[in-house]
């Protein structure tokens, strides 16, 4: 039981980071960022490059933050340079633009990091293991879950307890009204995109020692992120959290019990939720 739970929580942590970014960006910009999985993958690659400089564990532990910040910066550039040009032209074009980015990213990855999978579990060995109820666990895995939980709390605090968060939430309700109060909506958009891509890149950086990276993980992660967001309810961070835990744990137990169809179980959950509650667990009314 314990290993499945820990694995499920690791998976849930990453799903949450990715899905929270997707859902925040959707909540504010009304755009589903199809290149979100690519930002996640970018995070892993950047963390990999950073940790080439030295074997210092501190650098390893810091690398997800740097990866997140850089992914966020790339996200900002994308939002300002490309995405903002198609606002108001309908979601078809917004979606396609982010979809096109997936392919641009793929070749950027191939040029920058080659076509072979990369991985670096050094930090896992350096931190060693701990024993939980008789099971040996890499300490890094516990660190990963803890830091993701802390980040979830920080995110909650940022959105619900600070002025910036209030402005972001106000924008998601009504951007005309918000801008009439003197808020620069464009700045909110950039900030949101940074935040969303930061979360994806950060999640990626955390996973370098666990899974590593390969081309194709971008689309896998995108689809899982979309499933979490659909199950949780589009635009709901609480929904993303609950759905991540649900899907993370189900998948972890599924892998150990029904390895042949573990991924299918995830989709079956999604279909079941949608039939019972079409707008997702915590979704409001569809716009």
């Amino acid at each position, binding site marked *: 039981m314990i290993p499945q739970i820990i694995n499920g929580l690791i998976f849930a942590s990453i799903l949450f980071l990715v899905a929270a970014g997707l859902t925040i960006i959707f909540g504010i910009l009304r755009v589903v960022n199809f290149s979100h999985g690519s930002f996640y993958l970018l995070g892993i690659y950047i963390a990999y490059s950073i940790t080439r400089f030295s074997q210092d564990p501190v650098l390893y532990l810091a690398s997800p933050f740097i990866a997140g910040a850089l992914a966020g910066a790339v996200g900002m550039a994308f939002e300002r340079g490309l995405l903002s040009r198609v606002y108001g032209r309908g979601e078809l074009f917004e*979606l396609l633009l982010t979809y096109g980015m997936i392919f641009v990213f*793929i070749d950027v990855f*191939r040029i920058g990091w080659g076509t072979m999978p990369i991985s670096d579990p050094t930090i896992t060995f350096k931190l060693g293991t701990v024993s939980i109820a008789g099971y040996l666990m890499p300490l890094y895995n516990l660190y990963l879950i803890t830091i993701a939980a802390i980040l979830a709390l920080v995110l909650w605090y940022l959105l619900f307890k600070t002025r910036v968060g209030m402005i972001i939430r106000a924008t998601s309700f009504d951007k005309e009204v918000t801008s009439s109060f003197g808020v620069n909506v464009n700045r909110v958009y950039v900030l949101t995109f940074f935040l969303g891509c930061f979360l994806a890149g950060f999640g990626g950086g955390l996973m370098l020692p666990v899974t590593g990276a390969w081309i194709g993980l971008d689309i896998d992660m995108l689809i899982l992120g979309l499933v979490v967001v659909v199950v949780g309810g589009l635009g709901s961070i609480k929904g993303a959290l609950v759905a991540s835990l649900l899907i993370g744990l189900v998948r972890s137990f599924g892998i150990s019990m029904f390895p042949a169809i573990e991924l299918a179980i995830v989709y079956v959950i999604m279909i079941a939720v949608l039939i019972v509650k079409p707008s997702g667990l915590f979704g409001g009314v569809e716009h």
Partner: protein
Amino acid sequence: MRDFRIVYLAIAIILFCIPFTGEYPTYLTGLALLFGISALALNVLLGYTGLLSFGNALFFGAGAYTVGLLIKHYDIAAIEILFPASIATSFAVAVAVGFICVRHTRIYFTMLTIALASLFYALAHKLRPITGGDDGIRIYDTYLFGREIASVTEFYYLILVFFFASILVLRIILKSPFGLTLQAIRDSEMRARFAGISITKYRLGSFIVSGVFTGMAGALYALFLGQISPDDVLGLTRSGEFVAMTILGGFTSFTGPVVGAFVFTYLKAFVSSALIYWYMVAGIIIIGVVLFVPLGIMGEIERRLLWRR
């Protein structure tokens, strides 16, 4: 109107003559025709009903895997059986999936199509004993009315027949009251509802039309290539290609998707033979079309023709 007919006739003659230019152009054009049917079918949803499906590979794969599984497990090699079976499967899949999807619109619909296509992808991937998993299925020794069909040229003409038939049938469907009603729903769901139209029923109808034609193209693809795998026929990239082709050719035009399919397929073949970075080029094309030619090739041409008059 008359000069357009001449253009169509000329295109038909050129398509008929393609096999005389060699095996590779025939193969490439065959693919373009298949994807043309698929893109046209996607546009029934996108251009005519206003629903963006990013999961149409689901139908393509349903058609292809019906052929593959029947050959692999039941040794059925008769195309005249394989083909209707594929259509029946894609019909059934469209009804089941459509039932879940059509209650939603816009981005919700799009995300659901992705997720449901991914379910089938995951199954094809994991149920190795049945589907062959990653390795997929090889398809060979197929017969049409007792005659073995093996060469690229033979399959090409088979595809060409279905291509013309699809264009004709889709044209009729979309010009019919049913097609007009779909466009009405696209433009104003509310108004259509108050014209006495059951929105979900028509969306489902549109979904089924799209699914059946895509499934047919998938079946032809399996026969034509002789090899299918989950990534090739069921992956998100396949669905995305249908969308990219449709947008490139122009979703506001009936013929746009076919033009897009041809341009995309040829371009992909040429670019990937000359350069290893096809993905980058594809991405830039998609982004470029969105930013600079949102109506696509045919949409832009039609707009200019109208403007000049």
